[in-house]
């Protein structure tokens, strides 16, 4: 069949997965339809709760910027990222040095 991939240890069939996906989606939508019957669209229930304050009109004031995303991840791996930053110095001669360093490592592995 043109949709089944045999990997050697198992298989992958895209249409089996899509069928499963559609069934699960239908199930989720059915669960969702069983939700609260007192919900009214375009009422106060739709208002954003902003700590009791008026919601700023400019979305820029209430979004988390990309530079703050995964803050905890970066904080936890601070040492790792300090090291990576020091490697990525942005200096052209450093780039060439990394190239020469890799040639040297390969030479150690293959020649000696």
């Amino acid at each position, binding site marked *: 069949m043109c949709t089944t991939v045999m990997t*050697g240890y198992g298989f992958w069939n895209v249409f089996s997965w899509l069928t499963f996906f559609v069934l699960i989606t239908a199930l989720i939508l059915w669960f969702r339809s069983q939700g609260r019957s007192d919900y009214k669209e375009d009422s106060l229930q739709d208002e954003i709760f902003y700590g009791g304050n008026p919601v700023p009109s400019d979305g820029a004031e209430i979004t988390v910027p990309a530079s703050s995303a995964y803050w905890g991840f970066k904080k936890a791996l601070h040492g790792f990222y300090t090291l990576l930053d020091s490697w990525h110095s942005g200096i052209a001669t450093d780039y060439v040095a990394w190239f020469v360093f890799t040639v040297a490592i390969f030479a150690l592995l293959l020649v000696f």
Partner: protein
Amino acid sequence: MSWTNHLPALVVAVPLFGAFGAPLVSLGGRVARNVWFLFFAAFSAFLSLLLWQHVVLSGTMVYVMGGSAWNIPLPSGMSLPVRILLEVDSFGALLALIGGICAFAGALFSLKFMEKFTGLDKYTALYLLLLSGMQGMVLTGDLFNLFVFIEIASVASFGLVVFWRDRPEAVEAGFKYMVVSTVGVMFILLAVAFLYGRYNVVNMAALGANLQYGLPEKVALIFLVVALAMKCGSVPMHMWTPDAYAEAPAAVTCLLVAVSQASLYALFRICFSVYGLSMGSSAVAWAIIVLGCLSMFVGVSMAVIQKEIKRLMAYHSVSQVGYILLGLGVGLLALGNPQEMNAYGMTAIKGGIYHLFNYAMYKPLLFLCAGALFYAAKSRNLNSLGGLARKMPYTTVLFLLAAAAIAGLPPFNGYVSKLLIYESSFAVHPILPVIAMVTSMLTLASFVKVFQTAFLGPEKEALSQVREVPQSMILGMGLLALVILGLSLFPSWSLDHLITPAAEALVDKASYVGAVLGGGF
């Protein structure tokens, strides 16, 4: 002789002719230049499709430039392959097809994206020259011409990276790229000199037939592997990629991704078809696997913390190249052992080549989406973007498709190739798929960040005038999306008709050598 026999030369020559004609045609105005550009990009893609079809149906093609035979028999009876040869098997033809698709998608995108800039005659010429150099890299049958075509592609790409020369960042990126690339390419030339000094030939098939693995051959292999790994953006020589990919116009980055795949092609062509079993030990295979793992992890780690969208995607390029190095490195490791080759080696090579194809489709699409965001919102800084899904619905859908594919989410094509790499690399060591899967998770996290910050959230006042990009740009992105959907929905067909012939051609050194030398050398 049928004209189809000239396809290998045409695939290189047509964009080259387009490149040299572009400045002249540009004198006729914007429309003439655009028609010329699009025609040559489309015609090149069509020719590469014909070439791929011809090779798959009829077998490896050998094309002798300027002659009917590869050799010039001497009175002494000595017969050396001295002419310029193009040798195209299924692997090379697949790479040419990839290059053709990326170049056409990029050209379609360029029409509107570059419209307001001056110097487009030079842009068109350099773009087609880059395409020609890249096609030459994957079709050539000899090492010296590989060097020449790499140089052609490199020089064209230096010019394109600094196309926005009023931006100091672009000039700096171009300079760094030029320095590192030139040093690397000089090492390739040195390697060619080592091999030529030993064997009096630069033809890859002839070298493959005669290679004895001594010290000069080892030195040549080191220079070739490291230089080509640098050209494809492998860690720790990847630092030029975020600079160059981020500063080049989006359509150029689209083509630069394909060029990096041509470097990967050359790397594995040399390892499998020139050196092959003569390497003896598994040191090179392990070195490539380690480079792959480092590229995956360091690339994705740097990508997660970026806030500039093209820089983030450039680091993902490094990470994706790591998967391909891992897959093909595992295949190289199993090369000498038929049992291991059957058990996992062939699966790894197929996974690597499938990932190469996938990557060459979804990564350009992601770069084009980043270009579309820049075109519409005038910013590449994710902190400045937000809420664009309502204003740019087509770009949003196309971005989602490419992001899901690169993150390896089922049912997309990235999932299938990663699955093949996970399973085969597990047979070598369990830590390898663990690194690959962690990389995949971080890739997903990274693109969730991009999607959330650029497309979701409330509308920002500064972006209230943003509109969807013009149709030609959507068409360029749509072409790549169509290929991604095809690869996702018909993975088995893709494997059987696109990937397996390429993998078998790569592994079968005897066939590669025999296609040129036939009865012997």
